[in-house]
């Protein structure tokens, strides 16, 4: 008998607080580490993100492109902050990314 085993990992990343031009490199470094380790499926839980600027958005889009190129994907959990949700709709991030209401929902069917 031969047994082939494959483990497919999904990284769940939940930043808290502000993601802006100053803090975005810190998030990028964490994501880069996962990409370098071969992770191609990501759930970015933005529920606890109080503020997201275009530098933070650039980090998310860069990850999305890398993940999809490798056959994976990035799903976003909506921020709790209504103002931040409106910005994701304004920039149509809610159409570019698969959105979910919770980490559990995002992980389903991945």
């Amino acid at each position, binding site marked *: 008998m031969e047994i082939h085993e494959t483990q497919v990992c999904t990284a769940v990343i939940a930043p808290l607080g502000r993601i*802006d*031009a100053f803090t975005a490199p810190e998030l990028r470094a964490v994501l880069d580490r996962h990409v370098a380790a071969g992770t191609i499926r990501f759930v970015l839980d933005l529920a606890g993100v109080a*503020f997201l600027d*275009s530098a933070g958005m650039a980090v998310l*889009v*860069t990850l999305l492109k890398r993940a999809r190129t490798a056959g994976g994907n990035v799903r976003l959990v909506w921020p709790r902050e209504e*103002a931040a949700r409106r910005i994701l709709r304004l*920039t*149509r991030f809610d159409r570019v990314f698969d959105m979910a209401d919770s980490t559990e929902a995002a992980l389903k069917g991945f």
Partner: protein
Amino acid sequence: MSRDPAAQQPVLVRLEIPADHRYLNVVGACATALLGRAPGLKEAEIAHYNIELALQEACANIVDHAYAGQPGRIVIELSYIEASRQLTVDLFDTGRPFDPQMAGEPPLDEPQVHGYGLFLIRSLMDETTYESLPVGNHWRLTKRLT
């Protein structure tokens, strides 16, 4: 509209910060604090967030493009007229002139790494104007709050 003469006068706040991402949150916090005492704004949290985001983007553009990593200063003048609920923010820097070629709208149906900054400023503020100065740049962002 208020008939109180004091409400017709602009409240002026002037900031000067290093052109460094580390300090940009100071600008939004200042605007939020200023507007936090303005009575009767609808959806105040949304309005504060949007103004904070627009100012963050405007300052980040100055750091990234006008100064392009070089040290510099940003002068920010906030002016709020309570009677008309109008916020005007003037930003001054002494960096390189703005390149209008950067001003295109991002194609939003495709994921973009760059181009959201100006789009957000223009979407969130009522008016955004740019003026090239003999030395540096002047941006004016205006928002009529409801």
